[in-house]
């Protein structure tokens, strides 16, 4: 999956700040090149429309904090397990240093932020993965934070909204990371058995072990337009079948037409849609006339 992580990264060319890759002679960081349609857009324009490609509508990545800001009601977020941080379960060389460097760079402790918030007054447990932290790969901390979030949601009888983004399982934690897939899926199962609502939002990119666990298990699965969602990396598949795959392969739209996504929702409508879905799944919502 480390391979996949590299492939996703190169395919999406998130490394546009690297001047070596800027063939046009424009100062670094000035342009955003859309991974879906290859259009280059001035960064200022791209940022001003909320990190969305003005040409094709591809919804680019946000940090967990940016996402929280546009999703939760102001002042309602209470974070869970803020201090959970990684150890090195299989003594993988250089892992601790890598995590430390990322902590310093991103200001995050790990690749997911979890907690409780309100969305237009509807209380829910929320999880937001952040691809800026080791491609939001899932190791022990991500697995544990998600599992605890679901367990708290069961205790408090709350729905869960989870913004997924991930390169997959975290290779540096070996088999322990694989087991997080089973652990988180188990927590989803208990939450579901309790009759509670779980909504996933697939954001760019959602791949590998996260697609193959909790991200695909929502009662309702939403996705942002044009984002990359899949299990195996595109080039891995192209290598296997020795054919070039169509451009829309593994896009949110591709997933929807193949039966795996309920709705594609633009970022500007996401909060509204989440609010409605939370409200529609409330037990107390039953009107007088039917009682």
């Amino acid at each position, binding site marked *: 999956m480390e391979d996949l992580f590299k492939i996703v990264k190169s395919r999406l060319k998130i490394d546009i700040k690297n001047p070596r890759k800027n063939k046009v002679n424009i100062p670094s960081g000035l342009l955003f090149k859309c991974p879906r349609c290859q259009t280059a857009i001035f960064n200022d324009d791209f940022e001003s429309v909320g990190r969305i490609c003005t040409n094709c509508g591809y919804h680019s990545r946000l940090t967990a904090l940016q996402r929280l800001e546009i999703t939760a009601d102001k002042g309602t977020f209470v974070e869970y397990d803020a201090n959970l941080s990684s150890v090195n379960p299989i003594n993988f060389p250089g892992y601790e240093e890598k995590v430390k460097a990322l902590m310093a760079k991103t200001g995050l402790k790990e690749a997911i932020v979890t907690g409780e918030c309100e969305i237009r007054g509807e209380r829910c447990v929320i999880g937001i993965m952040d691809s800026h932290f080791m491609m939001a790969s899932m190791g022990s901390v991500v697995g544990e934070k998600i599992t605890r979030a679901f367990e708290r949601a069961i205790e408090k009888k709350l729905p869960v909204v989870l913004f997924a983004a991930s390169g997959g399982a975290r290779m540096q934690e070996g088999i322990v990371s694989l087991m997080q897939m089973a652990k988180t899926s188990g927590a989803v199962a208990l939450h*579901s058995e309790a*009759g509670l609502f779980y909504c996933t939002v697939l954001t760019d990119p959602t791949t590998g072990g996260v697609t193959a666990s909790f991200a695909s298990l929502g009662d309702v699965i939403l996705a942002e337009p044009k984002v990359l969602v899949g299990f195996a990396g595109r080039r891995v598949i192209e290598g296997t079948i020795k054919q070039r795959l169509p451009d829309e392969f593994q896009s949110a739209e591709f997933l929807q037409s*193949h*039966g*795996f*996504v*309920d*709705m594609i929702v633009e970022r500007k409508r996401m909060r509204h849609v989440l609010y409605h*879905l939370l409200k529609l799944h409330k037990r107390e919502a039953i009107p007088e*006339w039917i009682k």
Partner: protein
Amino acid sequence: MDKITAWEKLSIIRNPKRPNAYDYIANIFENYYEMCGDRLYSDDRAITGGIATFEKLPVTVIATVRGKNIEQNKEVNFAMAHPEGYRKALRLAKQAEKFKRPVICLVDTPGAYCGVQAEERGQGEAIARNLKEFMRLKTPIISIITGEGGSGGALGLAVCDELAMLENAVYSVISPRGAANILWRDSSKEKEAANTMKITAEDLIKLGVADKIISEPLCGAHNDINMTCDNIVEYLFESLKRNCKKSLENLLESRYNKFRKIGLFSE
């Protein structure tokens, strides 16, 4: 006024102007959020389904979609669902069960799609599973035949606590053309077959298959969509009240008996 024959009814319900699923959904429900896909293979556009509110009550709506022109009909395959359509319907019904929402099915289909790929993916199995699962679904199910109730393709969304039919709707084991073909090896005898097969709402009430006829404006639903929808709303209001009140045990027992008692024989 002369009674409208089954054949005449067929021409009314096959009128391209007749309201389709999206017209009914827009006029009867609020906040419709369409949910896509069977989580297995595809999203079948011949069946739409999702969550909505009916008079503030959250419900799950599942409906076959008839196109109004060739372009739309290509997309929805003339309202003939593939297995993935029935599997989407089942997925949404199961979700309705989990969240204790009643299920409302609107049916207007010539039948389940007959084709190679539909067979490969198990058309028979998909319908069969719906019959079994809908029979035991732990939440009320109301089905309304709004146009053509074509055979197994309709029944896949019509195992329910109450079956209502719009006044001009028909429900049959096979299309009249198919019946003519099988019975007389002559598909031109479609009209004769239609009038012989006992397929109108009145026939089906007599046969104990349908429970209620919802009246249509003169000359058919398309003449006044609002009035048609008002009539459906009124029916749903009463029907949901009746069925949501029942205990789960009573609900499932009555549903089983509704189908258990159908069959005529001597011994």
